[in-house]
């Protein structure tokens, strides 16, 4: 790897003080540290040795945890495509169609996001931070496969600028950056992110019987029109599409990466096993959703309320949100007690929004954003309790 090192060395003077690209030093440094872990050593005082971990490794761990969801998502986009147009296809065909739909979204999300990030780093002379490695993937995975690419670009810019840089960059944001992107699209271009957008047709036409209704849509209809949700689900045009097992596996239309609860759980195993994601948050989101589902079962005034509680865990984006979004350490609660409360309320609010407010069929996005805002408040009380314990001790 000596030639690469030499190349960097040769370029270095241009980026140093007085060099012609002095302003872009942070870009130089950012790229060099991706190729090579830096040659920095510990100071003369303080710890003389440091742990081998760094943020790059933590972030890449999260990216790796999302790969099962990504691969499955690509395949599923193809799978849904062929179902809707009424053709049979093999694995490779499905993957190919999926790739055609998904890869451009991924490329746009990463390139536009990184470019925005680099611009801010240069203006502010910040080091390039690795947070976007995760955000770029997340944004792609929560988009419908039919999303226009320019909207992905716009949403990404909005999320990075308003969601993150406006607050001071990585580590300072209040809201989850990827969800900010999705929320932006949801309110700015609702017709492209709700309704008949979950199946990618390409240049083909769906069969006549086709209906793009999702479980959440059946639920919303059940609330407003008093229809029977479970009956609607089993009467879906494609037989067995909305069986519990199918929902769990994620063989349903939906956002690219979030249909499969199973893939999210594999991600959860990676995140929890490596200690990178908080198991407390993941567990409590599921717990909160199940709890609220059971409460609604007991109330039972419409068929959505009567939906068996475990269904809430496998429909919509709950699992994906619980595993990959709610666990974002920057926007989540940061105290250990706080994490339980934060997660539980996310789960609870998700189901509450789904069932009570059919105007917003998918509750997880709003629930997480809402709790992002409240996380500092939860932490405030946990920290305050710690202070009070110390104060109480002093007077004894």
């Amino acid at each position, binding site marked *: *790897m000596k030639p*690469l*090192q030499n190349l960097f060395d040769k370029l270095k003077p241009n980026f140093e003080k007085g060099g012609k690209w002095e302003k872009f030093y942070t870009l130089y440094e950012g790229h060099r*540290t*991706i*190729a*090579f*872990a*830096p*040659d*920095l*050593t*510990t*100071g*003369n*005082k*303080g*710890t*003389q*040795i*440091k*742990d*081998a*971990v*760094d*943020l*790059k*490794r*933590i972030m*890449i*761990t999260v990216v*790796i945890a999302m790969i099962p969801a990504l691969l499955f998502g690509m395949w599923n986009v193809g799978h849904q495509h062929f179902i809707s147009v009424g053709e049979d296809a093999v694995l490779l065909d499905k993957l190919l169609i999926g790739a055609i739909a998904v890869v451009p979204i991924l490329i746009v999300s990463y390139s536009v996001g990184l470019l925005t990030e680099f611009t801010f780093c240069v203006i502010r002379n910040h*080091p390039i*931070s690795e*947070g976007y490695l995760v955000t770029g993937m997340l944004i792609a995975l929560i988009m419908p496969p039919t999303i226009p690419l320019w909207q992905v670009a716009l949403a990404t810019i909005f999320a990075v600028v308003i969601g993150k840089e406006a607050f001071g*960059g*990585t*580590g*300072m944001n209040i809201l989850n950056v990827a969800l900010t992107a999705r929320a932006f699209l949801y309110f700015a271009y609702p017709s492209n992110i709700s309704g008949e957008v979950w199946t990618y047709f390409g240049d083909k036409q769906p069969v006549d019987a086709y209906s793009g209704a999702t479980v959440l849509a059946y639920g919303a209809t059940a609330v407003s029109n008093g229809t029977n949700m479970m009956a609607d689900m089993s009467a879906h045009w494609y037989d067995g599409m909305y069986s519990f097992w199918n929902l769990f596996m994620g063989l349903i239309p939906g956002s690219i990466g979030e249909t499969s609860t199973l893939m999210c759980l594999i991600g959860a195993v990676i995140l929890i*096993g*490596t*200690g*990178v994601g*908080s198991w407390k948050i993941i567990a409590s989101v599921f717990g909160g959703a199940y709890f609220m589902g059971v409460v609604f079962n007991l109330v039972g005034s419409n068929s959505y309320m009567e939906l068996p509680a475990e269904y809430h865990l496998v429909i919509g984006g709950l699992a994906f949100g619980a595993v990959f979004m709610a666990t974002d*350490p*920057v926007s*989540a609660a*940061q*105290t*250990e007690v706080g*994490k339980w409360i934060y997660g539980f309320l996310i789960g609870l609010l998700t189901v509450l929004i789904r069932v009570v407010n059919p105007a917003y069929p998918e509750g997880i996005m709003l629930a997480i954003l809402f709790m992002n805002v409240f996380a500092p408040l939860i932490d405030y009380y946990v*920290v305050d309790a*710690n*202070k009070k*314990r*110390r*104060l109480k*001790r*002093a007077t004894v």
Partner: protein
Amino acid sequence: MSKTIKLKRGFDINLAGKPEKKISESSHSETYALKPTDFINMSRPKLLVKEGDTVKAGTAMLYDKMSEGVKYCSPVSGEVVEIKRGEKRKLLEIKILADKEVVFEKFKTFSTSDLANLSKEEALEQMQAGGVWPNIIQRPFGIVANAEDTPKAIFISAFDTNPLAPDVAFQLGDKEKFFQAGLDVLRKLTPGKVHLNINGQAEVPQVFAQANGVELNKFSGPHPAGNVGVQIHHLDPISKKDIVWTVAPYGVAQIGQLFLEGKYDASKLVAVTGSEVKNPGYVKTYSGVMLEKLFGSEVPTGHLRFIAGNPLTGENCGKAGYLGYYHNQVTVIPEGDYEEFLGWIKPSTKKLSFHKAIGLLSFLNRGKEYTVDTNTHGEDRPFVVSGEFEKVLPMDILPTYLFKAIISEDYDDMEALGIFELIEEDVALCEFIDPSKNEIQKILREGIEMIKNS
């Protein structure tokens, strides 16, 4: 009541180069140094000697204008050859060219029975004049104690859980017989208890097991269970306006020796440790020795870092640097100023980590001794990850919130979040495991200084 406390949180850093229990003589160090910079709170040092003066071991060389009674004494006898100053004439080192045979300054001697009737005033006077007082550290703030204070208790940690830690009892060496006398003197200084905290996971050395007049508490668990700050938190925590004192066992024995033999004996068994040391063990020498003299004829060579102290809290002195007043260990590890291709993602079983993020496999083999160099393995970043510091600080303290309070200079929050209970060594593990590579010990000291001067 003696207590037994089991701590769960923490992390033992298992490094190569632990000291074996064998003692070798150091090669004769020509110069020794007293470093005023060892004493964090020393604000206006005044010299009592000038270059060319001859001194004995125990001759007062220095005092702080803010606390005139406490004398800082020469560790050996010889001639003052250099008074080294840094920027703004800051006093850095007083170097002494040592005699072959150390001659001691004479202080008053006491018999064991005298000690029973020793008055507090007499004890304070002798300790301050006789060079042993700086062994007594005040909490909060981790500074040399003020003799005019009355501490609510005194705490002694009788074991060290730091990486490559020396065996504290073994290190007492022939000073062991003075340990009890030291305890007897310390008991005069507080109306409260003297706590002696021992390792609950190992056999208790006789010298500690037989100690009289103390509360014997057992602590077990990973590092930092041996840190006296952690022990205080669990025994009798410090609040605002409280003052407690801490002393290391070596200091206790040195105090005892001053009273029984009337001399300030700065000889100590220094642990010579680290992966680059050929025969890690103990070396008999004096405080302030030049580091390279500790290795006999086997001075490690290569691109290395010579650390006075342990790898978590020690100081990079260079091999021509001098051991400090409080150091009882020297560590030699490789320097880490190299780049590593894709080092941030490459899987490795050779890299030591507290974490288990992708590719960090050291958790599979915690029994293995790791060779760790001085590479930081990453760059400075803002705090991102939450809940990790708590795992290595076994105290009811929220470290991230405290550090953020310090960074934003929020005095009320610093106090409320427990800054009185911590000094640098207590958060050294937080600094080690931090994925964002913040200089946490430095941040904490800045906070302590803010509170102390407010």
